[in-house]
């Protein structure tokens, strides 16, 4: 047990450990925000508006006197939730496309490869704007838009992985042994492709959070008074000259979360071990 723990710690490295602690804090903020910030994120107090950071208000207050630290903590659920949902959609679509392409007939693979290539020609935000133009703005639309925009990326990664696994020795051996295709899938292909997906997904959630907050910044995402980080950043930017904390601190939350997720995702996928 101790040896396992030591191995994990060594693999994580000092940066990874910090990131893991950060992730723990973020997860705590998502599931039990009241532990970190017991106040009400929607409670207004106009007389205390625009207070700079202090002991009473570690992150200061916003234009309606709401405590910014409380809002950032409670906003973790909104932002991370939206990021997770978008990633879920992206991975779901990517799974379907990736598996269908790698395991299905040749013509399907070629067709899917072409479609994925085409979707790559549309940058994420451009595709999101296209979807918003048709569906209309809102949280739902931004989740679908970012999910659809990131699906080609996941599809490509999955297809490559699945093909690699399908061509591997142990699958060939299992087939040779007469194991049925469903069992081969369940015992060999699925575990070897889905576990590494966790690492990619971790990275993906971080990036999705940034994209979703970009849509909120453009006015196409979460609605007031939701404490979603991107929306808070958008609202705070108006007062950036006089109340810098309203913009800088939620932005730091986004950067910190995305960084933590990226570091952990890299470590988990092994890319981090070669000195990067």
């Amino acid at each position, binding site marked *: 047990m101790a040896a396992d723990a030591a191995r994990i710690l060594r693999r994580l490295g000092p940066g990874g450990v910090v990131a893991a602690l950060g992730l723990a804090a973020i997860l705590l903020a998502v599931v039990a925000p009241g532990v970190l910030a017991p106040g009400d994120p929607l409670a207004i107090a106009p007389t205390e508006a625009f207070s700079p950071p202090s002991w009473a208000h570690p992150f200061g207050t916003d234009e309606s006197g709401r405590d910014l630290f409380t809002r950032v903590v409670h906003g973790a659920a909104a932002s991370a939730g939206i990021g997770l949902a978008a990633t879920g959609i992206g991975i779901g679509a990517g799974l379907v496309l990736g598996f269908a392409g790698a395991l299905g007939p040749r013509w399907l693979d070629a067709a899917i490869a072409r479609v994925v290539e085409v979707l*790559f020609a*549309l940058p994420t935000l451009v595709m999101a704007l296209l979807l918003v133009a048709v*569906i209309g703005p809102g949280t739902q639309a931004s989740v679908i838009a970012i999910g659809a925009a990131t699906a080609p990326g996941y599809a490509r990664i999955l297809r490559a992985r699945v093909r690699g696994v399908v061509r591997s020795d142990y699958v060939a051996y299992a087939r040779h042994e007469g194991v049925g295709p469903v069992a081969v899938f369940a015992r060999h292909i699925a575990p070897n492709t889905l576990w590494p997906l966790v690492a990619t997904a971790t990275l993906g959630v971080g990036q999705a959070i940034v994209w979703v907050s*970009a849509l909120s910044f453009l006015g196409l995402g979460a609605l007031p008074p939701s404490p979603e980080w991107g929306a808070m*950043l958008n609202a705070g930017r108006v007062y950036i000259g006089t109340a810098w904390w309203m*913009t800088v601190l939620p*932005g730091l939350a986004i950067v910190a979360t995305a960084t933590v997720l990226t570091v952990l995702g890299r470590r988990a996928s092994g*890319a981090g071990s070669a000195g990067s």
Partner: protein
Amino acid sequence: MPDSSADPLPARLARGLPAWLRWLLGRIGSALLVIWVVATAVFFALRASGDPLEAILGGPGSQAGPEAVAQARAEYGLDHPLVVQYLAQLWRVATFQLGDSYARRQPVAELIGAQLPGTLLLAVLALLLAWALAVAGSTIAATAGAGSGWRGRAGRAAVGVLRGLELVATVMPQFWLGAVLILVFASSLQILPATSSGAGPAGLVLPVVTLAIPIAGFLAQVSRDALLEADASPFAVTARSRGASEPRVLLHHTLRHASLPALSLSGWAFGHLLSGAVVVEALFARPGLGRLLLDAAMSRDVPLVIGAVVVVALLYVVVVTVVDAVELVVDPRLRTPRAPHAMRTPELAVGS
């Protein structure tokens, strides 16, 4: 030996053409495919999301009179069967009849044509800056860590800082970065303008920097990996053993190999830049394709959105084509048909 006469006609024809022509036709095919998919997707999405007439006329509050409604109905053939409408739409897109923007009552092609140069200027400058930063950063990282003693340790610490900066650059939201830059350089120090249009150098600095930094982060990581790999490769080792100095080794051998991944990522980078342009143009009040697309999306101006998206997709295909051509020139290894295909997108970026 397989009997080639049993192959289908197109395959036989294809093999008869010279390699470069086949490649070019492939690229054109990609472009056509892109346009077709976009047109189809928008057509069905439009029909699926409610009354297409409302969206065509510019949203629910368009206050369009009965004449405009009748005209739109006739132009879009909304009384005809779905298949006919679909084919008509494809024909319109194929002949670049992108229609008129209903919010602005001007031809879509004109609007896009007017705004495109500004965005392209930003994108090209940002890409150049990103390359420069990436190559500089990876070169420093690769060479600073060498040596022993306090110089070596300081160098390695600097490398660690650089790696951290790269990481943060890749996850930093561009609108936040831009807002902070405006706060520092425009509002507080007042040495750079907050808004700009056109090609004035002072006004380009902040937007270009904001656009370039996330791309520079990705490119730097990729360049550094390639540089380290090239540094350890046989020809570099041989060159050193023959007494060549470090700078010489760098310039003559490794740098060229290190810049290859950055080059092949340029297609993805360009896409990312166009995404970024939407945010940056909104933030710095610059006119451009990004801002046009944003306004069009917000006012549900579908002809304009379709036009802008088609243009963006085509640009991407053009850039990828150019990059492929340049790659073939720069790296002869890629000219053989079974050559390893260089990475087109950074391994760990799921979107652009």
